[in-house]
Every structure is written in structure tokens, then in C-alpha cells.
């Protein structure tokens, strides 16, 4: 499965890019699986996801939980808790 991943705020800064297209194996089934997979991609990802409870996710522009399946997703976003307003 091919999916577009986007990063915001300090997640983006730590990984060093605003997003990327990745090819995922079928075992990567949920948001939490994807976080585990990303952490193995290099020290910059390890730094961004060191405390996964501080990173939020969205699939196709809706907030999701770590156990949400990613099948069919076009765009998955990772970002810190929001601080607007």
C-alpha cells in the first residue's frame, strides 16, 4: 500500500521534512503499527516518535486513535497536540 504521510510542528522539524510517500507492507495495519514502522526508519524518526503518546494522528483529515486501521488511507498526518486559539 502506498500512502502520503505529512508532519507538522516539532514532528516535522525533528524528521526534517514536511512529508513523504511511503510503501507499506500489509502487516502495518493500524496507526500504532505505522508509528512503530516509522521509528525504525532512522534516528530522526526515533526522535520524533520517542514519546508516541505526545504525537497525534489524522487519516484523510480526521483525527484518529492509535488503534485505527489505516487500510484505504490516502493521507496520514502526525503532529503534536494542537495549540491554536
Amino acid at each position, binding site marked *: 500500500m502506498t500512502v502520503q504521510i505529512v508532519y*507538522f510542528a*516539532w514532528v516535522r522539524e525533528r524528521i526534517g521534512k514536511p512529508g513523504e510517500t511511503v510503501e507499506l507492507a500489509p502487516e502495518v495495519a493500524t496507526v500504532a503499527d505505522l508509528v512503530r514502522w516509522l521509528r525504525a526508519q532512522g534516528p530522526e524518526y526515533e526522535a520524533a516518535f520517542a514519546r508516541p503518546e505526545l504525537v497525534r494522528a489524522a487519516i484523510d483529515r480526521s483525527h484518529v486513535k492509535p488503534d485505527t486501521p489505516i487500510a484505504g488511507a490516502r493521507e496520514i498526518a502526525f503532529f503534536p*497536540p*494542537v*495549540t*491554536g486559539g
Partner: protein
Amino acid sequence: MKVRVQTADFDVGEEVRRLTLGQHDIGAVVTFTGTVRGEAKGRPIVSMTLEHYPGMTEAELERIVADAEARWPLSATLVVHRYGELKPGDNIVLVVAASRHRHAAFEAAAFLMDFLKSRATFWKKETTADGEGHWVDAREADEAALARWAPRPAASD
């Protein structure tokens, strides 16, 4: 358009005027304006930069507005949120809720702000006088503020 995400400033009076023009069923208009404070944790800040998630931010704000409109009888609703670099004293966000009666307008405006604070995809970075940038931490109180909007039994009102 009930939701706008923009770099430009806004004028509260002008927004309210445009929103309520010719609508004579309105009796109450509540606005909330959020502004950049001059210091953070006791240190003066020189600027604040707001990043957001284009596309998702608008979609999420539209969902929050729709939730508010389902919950209170609102004649008009508006959310304007700025992004980019702002200075102390600058406007960040404007929420407007108009209704026949004041309690609906007050509650809807507070609801919009509470959900915006913990759901809208904005991130603030403060720059202090030494040139250092700090991402603002989310406040637990903002997440906790949502509890008071838990669905109530239909009979309670």
C-alpha cells in the same frame, strides 16, 4: 463562509456587521477574540508563528461549527483563525455566535472556542528575545474543558 483561515488581520466590528446585516431575528451576538500575549512563562516574547494543516484545519472547523449549530438555535456563526507570524497584541482568532437569546450565543461561542482549542490543527511557536523558538505545549486544561459539553440527556433542558 462560516470558516476562514488566513494570514490577514480581521476587524471584529466589521465582521459582526457583515454577518448580521439585515437579519432582524438576532437579539444577541457574542464574540471571542484571542490575542497574542506579550510574555510566556514570565519571559517576553517578540513574535509568535502559527503553523496549520491546510485542508484539515478548515474541515475540522466546519465540523465544530456544524456541531454548535446542531446544538443551539444560531442565526449566524463565524470562525476566523490567522496563521503565520504574529506580534504581541495581534489578533489570533475570532469566533462569533448570534442567536435570538443571549444564553445560546454565549454557550455556542464558548463551545466553539473549547473545541477549536483542542481539535483545530494549529501549532504555536513563540520566539523570545534571545531569538530562540519554543513550541507551545498543549494545556491539559483545554482537553478537560471539553467535559462540560458531554452530551446531556434530552430531558434535562
